[in-house]
């Protein structure tokens, strides 16, 4: 059974600098922004001033579809982080555009017991404006199609 995600009361949000800013703020326009090398044309993540494959510095962020698949996942059941009550699903998503580009995130709106490697997922953004901090839009993921049918779809996939 899918579980409906409730936004937590607090998250430790990043204070993005330099190349990271576009990734953490792209959600303002509902876009998942991923760095791409204009020399070898490969995407890469996290953003950096140079392509880790060909060392080219001709790199910039581009919007991607925000869709992908579960490369791997884990369900955390320990209260490590005081403001994120367990259980929650930590997921490594491989991008539809280029599966060897992967993004860590949380997978929500899903029963942890029903997640499978290979499940289709899509991004959405959670807006945070911490006092004294930087405004960010955290990219989270949920199953495709979202909500109650997710468990069934991903079940077939496993």
């Amino acid at each position, binding site marked *: 059974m899918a579980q409906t995600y409730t936004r937590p009361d607090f*998250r*430790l*949000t*990043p*204070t*993005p600098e330099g190349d*990271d800013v576009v990734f953490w703020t792209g959600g303002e326009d509902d876009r998942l922004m991923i760095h791409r090398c204009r020399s070898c044309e490969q995407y*890469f*993540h*996290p953003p950096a001033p140079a392509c*880790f494959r060909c060392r080219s510095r001709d790199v910039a962020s581009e919007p991607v579809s925000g869709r992908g698949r579960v*490369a*791997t*996942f*884990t*369900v*955390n*059941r*320990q209260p*490590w*982080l*005081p403001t*994120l009550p367990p259980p*929650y699903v*930590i997921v*490594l998503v491989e991008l539809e555009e280029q599966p*060897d*580009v*992967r*993004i*860590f*995130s*949380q997978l929500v709106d899903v029963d*942890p017991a029903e997640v499978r*490697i290979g499940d289709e997922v899509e991004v959405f953004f959670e807006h945070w404006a911490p006092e004294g901090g930087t405004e*960010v839009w*955290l990219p*989270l993921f949920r199953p495709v199609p979202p909500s109650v049918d997710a468990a069934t779809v991903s079940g077939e996939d496993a």
Partner: protein
Amino acid sequence: MRRVAMVGAGMTKFKEHFDLGIKELVPMAVSEMAASVDKGLDRSDIEAAWFGELTTSDGFPAGILADSCGLLDIPVTRVENACATGNDAVRNAMYAVASGIVDVALVVGADKVRESSSRSTFWEWAALTRDVAWDYPLGLVAPANFALHAARYLHESGATREHMAMVAVKNHRHALTNPKAQLRFEITVEQVLRAPTVVEPFGLYDCTPQSDGAAAVLLVSEEVADRYTDRPVWVRGVGLGLDRVMHQHKQDMTSFPPTVKAARAAYAMAGIGPADIDVAEVHDCFSAVELISYEDLGFCDRFGAAALVESGATTFEGSRPVNLSGGLKAKGHPPGATGVSQNVELFEQLRGDAHNQLDTPTYALAHNIGGPTAVSAVTILSTEKD
């Protein structure tokens, strides 16, 4: 290069030493090491030291070693290489002795996971390091890094949580006779599977405990080895391998390339292959990591680890026992000390003095992986000089 012999080895008990700091643990390990030197060690013989310490909660590490051991007239280098720190300290000391510049080198590894680090302090600390900015906002805690690899490994290899449990059960059983081990009790596969989940697929018994401790070994040149013992252990191979730090850049989630690289270098230096290894200490911070490492070290084929552990080959009674000390899982894991303590265990095995003593092993291998999966160090020891 000159041949390098290990002629002494000792360690503290691994446990939560609430009452002892690094400054107490380090000299305890050095004293134990000195006591193990067959013909005795005059401490003024020590010409240089390498200190593997991951965290620095107690101040300037090289100075702490010199101060606490009264070794103020020799150089001390701190080496840090995530959880591969201990075996990298051995590697650097080995180079110095092999060079002909140093005849007698001390290697110490130690860490103290301070109980005083409250959650709020941890958060402040976490906020200081940049890369975690990519992890904590979305709940990615350290054990989850390995859990993501393990989940994918189970998915691709066909291994199950039962195979992971067999590793934990085996290592707990091995630790029963080890007076230095932190967890000296037997567990069953059922207990492992029924234990509370930490981060899937890891239950409580799939994870190493939090430990404090120190370990020390003494490396000397072939020219002076017989001043210290008639039964030296030879440092035959050392290797260190790296991979991209970012998980997002790793190609294959079911193998750790640093281990493959470190092992390749160490086997090449030793002039042997994985089939020659009689006994090994393998990094099992989580049970699945031991399985993956069997494959990366060449102890079995790709995705052959489940069958290997099922066969019992890596138990004390098997053909190639792994983690006779109890491993990180049951002996404990103070990061800087762990690699050095693996050498302590193997030194004793190769000299016939170990608790789970094998029948005349010739080649032994120690292995770490850390960072969390960005660096590996491998050391190969042998009773054979060449």
